[in-house]
């Protein structure tokens, strides 16, 4: 004879059985969602890595081309101009000795001098030898030393952390130059303070100036509207470095570039 207690236990067990199945289905659903998110993030990571790889190749190609152009200018055009200058100087001297007016030749000589200076400056921009030979600090310092009419200050600390990080150094250098060029192009500045502080984990570049400055939103807006190389090059290099670029607009405007260095030794 079945007693009531057994029946109640059977019913309870049956109810529990239904609950367990419902829980099982929900666990399957929740696990599925977790797995999907993991797969999605893996896919996003793959996409990001692909994009970074592509950016890296584009920038590397750009740098190789720049170096080729710089080498051509330095090794072929520059010597030609220098020899031309020597010829003209000799001719001017000869004419002067004969008592003939050589001012036109002297004028042409000055033009050639100016062309040589421009070529040297372009060569330095295209292939910054100081950066390659003496590192980022000297590279930026050399560029800042050429700026005229602005009170420039430059601080640097933690140089040791930027050894063997050539790609990072080159990209920070290019970003710094592009940012300062843009500041000088679009703002009236009298003061410029550049600092670069490196630790084991990151390199932080700060550019402080007394111009009007722009915010992050304005920067992104300009970048999306711009068809030029400059801003897009900054964005591409920031992405490649997995860095953070922060622009603030205040009494003194500031640009902060934070580059992680913990993966730098891969270079």
């Amino acid at each position, binding site marked *: 004879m079945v007693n009531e207690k057994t029946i109640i236990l*059977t019913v309870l067990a049956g109810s529990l059985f239904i609950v367990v199945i419902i829980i099982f*289905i929900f666990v399957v659903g929740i696990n*599925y969602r977790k797995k999907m998110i993991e797969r999605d993030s893996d896919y996003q990571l793959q996409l990001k890595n692909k994009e970074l790889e592509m950016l890296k190749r584009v920038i590397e190609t750009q740098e190789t081309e720049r170096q080729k152009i710089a080498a051509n200018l330095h090794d072929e055009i520059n010597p030609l101009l220098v020899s031309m200058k020597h010829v003209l100087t000799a001719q001017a001297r000869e004419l002067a000795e004969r008592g003939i007016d050589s001012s036109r030749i002297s004028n042409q000589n000055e033009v050639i001098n100016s062309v040589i200076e421009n070529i040297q400056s372009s060569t330095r921009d295209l292939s910054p030898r100081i950066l390659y030979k003496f590192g980022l600090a000297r590279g930026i310092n050399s560029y800042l030393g050429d700026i005229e009419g602005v009170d420039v200050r430059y601080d640097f600390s933690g140089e040791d952390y930027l050894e063997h990080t050539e790609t990072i150094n080159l990209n920070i250098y290019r970003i710094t130059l592009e940012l300062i060029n843009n500041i000088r192009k679009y703002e009236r500045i009298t003061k410029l303070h550049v600092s670069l502080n490196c630790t084991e984990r990151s390199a932080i570049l700060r550019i402080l100036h007394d111009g009007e400055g722009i915010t992050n939103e304005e920067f992104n807006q300009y970048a999306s509207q711009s068809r030029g190389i400059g801003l897009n090059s900054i964005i591409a290099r920031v992405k490649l470095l997995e860095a953070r670029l922060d622009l603030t607009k205040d009494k003194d405007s500031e640009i902060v570039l934070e580059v992680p260095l913990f993966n730098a030794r891969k270079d």
Partner: protein
Amino acid sequence: MVLAYDILMYTSALSYIIPLYLLINDKTLSIILKVLSLFLVLSLATEFVSFYAINIQHKDNKWVLHIYTLICQFNLSLFYWFLIQNRVIRIFILAFNCLFLLFFIYNIQFITDNLMRAQLAYLLSSMFLICISSFYFYKVYTEMKITNLFQDGLFWINSAFLIYFSSTFYVSLFEEYIRSEDLNLLYYTWPIQLVSTIIFNVILSRGIWLMRKQ
């Protein structure tokens, strides 16, 4: 007790109307939903026939269980035939249905106890449907083709089948024994079947609603 049981029984029988209403309102049903509609119509019909046999004719309704078992087996096999587009599974479904038919005929011919033979076939059919709905979960889980599982109509429909057939399988296991002891004891165990029917129809409605949205 009897009143509560009656309310539960009517609610359970009428709960088929919710998914059916959702299906009737849709004029562009996919083949899977057409098979499902047929299953729901036939299930509702068996509920009415069963009710008519017991309450109006005051006769035995065990033969209705035979028909219901056949409806479940063949109709839902067809449902999973269209749902799982896998050659091995389709061969398995076909082979199992042939064997089931043979078993069913044998059951009717040689097992004399009316309830026992209906119960055996139903248990076998339930086991098959539990296995195949679990396989569908496995397939979905390993293929990872659905972006949001909780927004997928077929996930809910399959869940409804798994919950329903698991719980009715459990009840059917004890039903024969309980009936032989004391028929009144069914007032305790049968509500599991009724509640699972209501849960089944609610979850099924959610699935149909999501499929219509898709």
